[in-house]
């Protein structure tokens, strides 16, 4: 207000000095009034905005984006001098705007009104995908190599030298990208998303040479673990394999070609064919429309394929209690900020096994043992994060001891796609250990030996298997 008064005073100053002349000249009088009106209107807006920014209640968490917002930094001379204070303060000021999610909604509405829908409501988020199914590796050419636009398929992907890592870290045009968000998605969301009607589909870049490395790493695991331990690979396809209309096919690499390519390198590792069974059920809600994960039902079918491969019993869905939560708006909304997701929530359906089992959690370094629920209570979980129902997330080690008496002990090494498999296998294995490849700290080989594990399942989606995440498997081996 003080600002406003001051500005008014300032604005009034020239009129005092030239007041008489103004009265005589109607044009100048009018201009004076119009300028005053303009100044008052804009100063009022600026003042109101400032008061709102300074005294409005600042949120600390964003439910849509499933992250803590930037905290106000502590001032210190050193943090000021090295610039961290000021840059963090700017980030805090911007990140925690009062009524943030309302404004975000308004922004998404505004962006939705910048044009008209194309075709069946197709929106492409991110770069125009640089996919060519004929190219054996979708990695970016290294700087020293000339860029070839469309090379016909080379017969052997292994000929690729020095491939650059394909990275699935969302390197986005979205104005909201901040490091925290990238970490939250942890390399699982693709750069390119195609929205068709109300479904978001991540476009798959592929990565044959990464896939080969992935297969070779698993071979190494198998060689280390020996014949006494079964090693399986379940590379889960994503929605792009089933829901991308044919005419957009050129915008994605083929997941099944990449999966087959991986499988072709296995030596002693047993591949699990989840692709076919999911295809048989694609008319059911096996993938979320608004989230980058599958729905628990998709995981159930994939688990069935695994159980058949591993020769263990598998419970029908009737042996589960079905829980339906309405109003799921998954990660793709936070990532793309597209109104269509917010306006079209979907149900999130998961299945509680009815058999007896106990769940024990550990920190990622195997400390802090505690009992818990395999499926967490979602009552206080934001509707964007219901996929957390499985063990509450990734950053932990989980042990499930079941009433299954076959004596088979399974270890699942996985990305978040693997989480949804766990409840489907409580009736198939006597014990299940779950470790996330991004966070697991003990060496896997020793861990398997120590705990008498009989079966190791590597379960992750195609993005992880052929992307940057796969190299983490080498890190956690010993």
């Amino acid at each position, binding site marked *: 207000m003080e600002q406003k008064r*001051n500005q008014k005073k300032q604005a009034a100053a020239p009129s005092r000095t030239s007041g008489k002349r103004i009265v005589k000249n109607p044009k100048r009088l009018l201009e004076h009034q119009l*300028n005053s009106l303009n100044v008052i209107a804009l100063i009022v807006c*600026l003042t109101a905005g400032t008061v709102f920014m300074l005294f409005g209640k600042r949120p600390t968490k964003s439910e849509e984006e499933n992250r803590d917002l930037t905290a106000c930094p502590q001032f210190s001379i050193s943090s000021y001098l090295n610039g961290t204070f000021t840059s963090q303060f700017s980030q805090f000021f911007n990140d925690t705007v009062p009524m943030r999610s309302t404004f975000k909604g308004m*922004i998404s509405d505004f962006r939705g009104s*910048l044009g008209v829908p194309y075709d069946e409501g197709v929106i492409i988020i991110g770069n125009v995908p*640089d996919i060519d199914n004929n190219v054996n590796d979708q990695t970016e050419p290294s700087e020293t190599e000339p*860029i070839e636009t469309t090379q016909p398929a080379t017969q052997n992907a292994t000929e690729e030298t020095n491939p650059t890592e394909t990275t699935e870290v969302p390197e986005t045009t979205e104005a909201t990208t901040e490091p925290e968000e990238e970490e939250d998605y942890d390399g699982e969301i693709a750069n390119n998303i195609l929205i068709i009607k109300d479904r978001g589909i991540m476009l798959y870049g592929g990565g044959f040479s990464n896939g080969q490395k992935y297969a070779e790493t698993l071979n190494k695991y198998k060689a280390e673990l020996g014949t006494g331990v079964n090693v399986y690979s379940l590379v889960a396809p994503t929605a792009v394999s089933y829901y991308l209309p044919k005419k957009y096919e050129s915008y994605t690499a083929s997941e099944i070609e990449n999966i087959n390519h991986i499988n072709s390198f296995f030596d002693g590792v047993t591949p699990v064919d989840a692709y076919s069974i999911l295809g048989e059920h694609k008319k059911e809600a096996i993938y979320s429309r608004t989230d980058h994960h599958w729905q628990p039902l998709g995981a159930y079918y994939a688990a069935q394929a695994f159980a058949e491969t591993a020769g263990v019993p598998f419970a029908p869905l009737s042996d589960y209690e079905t829980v339906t939560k309405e109003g799921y708006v998954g990660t793709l909304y936070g990532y793309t900020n597209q109104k269509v997701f917010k306006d079209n929530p979907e149900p999130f359906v998961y299945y509680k096994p009815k058999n007896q089992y106990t769940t024990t959690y550990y920190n990622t370094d195997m400390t802090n043992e505690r009992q818990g629920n395999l499926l967490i209570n979602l009552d206080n979980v934001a509707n964007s994060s219901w996929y957390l129902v499985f063990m509450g997330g990734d950053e932990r080690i989980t042990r499930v001891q079941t009433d299954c008496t076959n004596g088979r002990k399974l270890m699942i090494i996985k990305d978040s796609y693997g989480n949804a498999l766990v409840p489907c296998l409580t009736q198939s294995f006597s014990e299940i250990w779950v470790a996330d490849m991004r966070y697991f700290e003990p060496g896997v080989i020793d861990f398997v030996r120590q705990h008498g594990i009989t079966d190791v399942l590597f379960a992750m989606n195609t993005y992880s298997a052929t992307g940057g995440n796969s190299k983490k498997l080498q890190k956690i081996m010993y």
Partner: protein
Amino acid sequence: MIFSSLIFVYLFLPLCLISYAAVKNLRYRNLVLVIFSLIFYAWGEPTRIIYLLLSAVLNYLFGIGVVKYKGKASKAILGVSLAYNIGMIGVFKYSGFLMENINAIFGAHFPVPEIAQLVGISFYTFQVMSYVIDCYWEKVEPQKDPMKFLLYVSLFPQLIAGPIVRYSTIAAEIDNRRTTLADLSGGLSRFVLGLAKKVILADHLFRIVDNFLGGSMENLTIVGTWYGVIMYSLYIYFDFSGYSDMAIGLGRIFGFHFNENFNHPFLCKDITEFWQRWHISLGSFFRDYLLPLSFFGVRNKYLSLFMVWFCTGIWHGASWNYIIWGLYYGMFIMLEAKLGKKKMRKIPLPIRHIYNKLVIIIGFGIFYFEDLDKLLLFLKNLTFFNSNGFVGIAEQASFCNNIFLIIAAVICTFPLLDYAKKLSERSLKTQAALSVSGTVISVILLLLSSVLLVDATTKAFLYYRF
């Protein structure tokens, strides 16, 4: 700190305005502006202020020196000042580039220095250089008051991304100025207009650009490539002219009247005219200070032109594509000069427009790609030298999804305000109606831009890095 951020609009600016209005004495007002300017510049990286202060102190002394001493001594001081200023830009902006090229050409392995670029160094160094040269040429009186000189160097509206304000433009206003009601009103509206250009138009156009040109472009069709680069041309105009609008608006709020930096460049009829309308303060800097120079005792029109366009190019960044970009323009300007104005005028206007738009748009493509391999791929993709097809779904979808944005952007390249001004001269009633509409539009633009700022990254203006 950048103008298009909530912290600037709703914290820094109000505090600055209150403090400025709270003191009446011009000396204190200047002090307020200096303090806020230094806070503004130090935001994010306080140590860089040392270089700004050093530049201010030395050039203050150089300015006095070139006038106080005559003859050779004066020339020597001018030489030292130029060496220092160009040296500073050289070290902070070009040393890495230079070393890389020396290593590449001679196969040497000198360590490539990794010096973080000083924000705004190209702008404020050019300002102080123009000041010292003007003092030497006795076009301006040197500023004796160090505080006033520091104000000229550090004045935050134009500090980090221009326009390059000549000392002569604001010398009188540093000593004596007043914000009239018209200044305050016009300045606020201009600031809001610039903010809206940046946040509503430029930022959304850039999302399209990044989708099409930001990836590997391996599969981009011909239409997709043209679409991407046309959007980029629009983006860069709104981004940079938006910044200049904000700078000029803020200047006016504090009683300074900077020269215009853009004059609807896309309306130009030829490339020569484009540069009279685009980044005017840079073009006029080179015209006034570089063009008249003789090189190695020789004054040659073509050599001078080459130097001007080489410098214009490299001023934008330490990368070959900028040099190519500068020389590319130089080439067309030379061709137009060769052809002569009369012959140029004889060419039908539509053809001239097609010619200059093509040159400008392809030019911005050259400007965009620092990676020369990608630039080559881009040029291939523009033509039929690729096999990605003519048009794809991606650009059709993007065009539909952004059709209103694109129409608005194209309309806004026309001098709408000039049309309104002309219209308002018809009668007082029209003037009142237009002015009130202007106020309503300004308020809407401010509110909309503010909401959009919630989603803004720290992504700065493109010209921030030059």
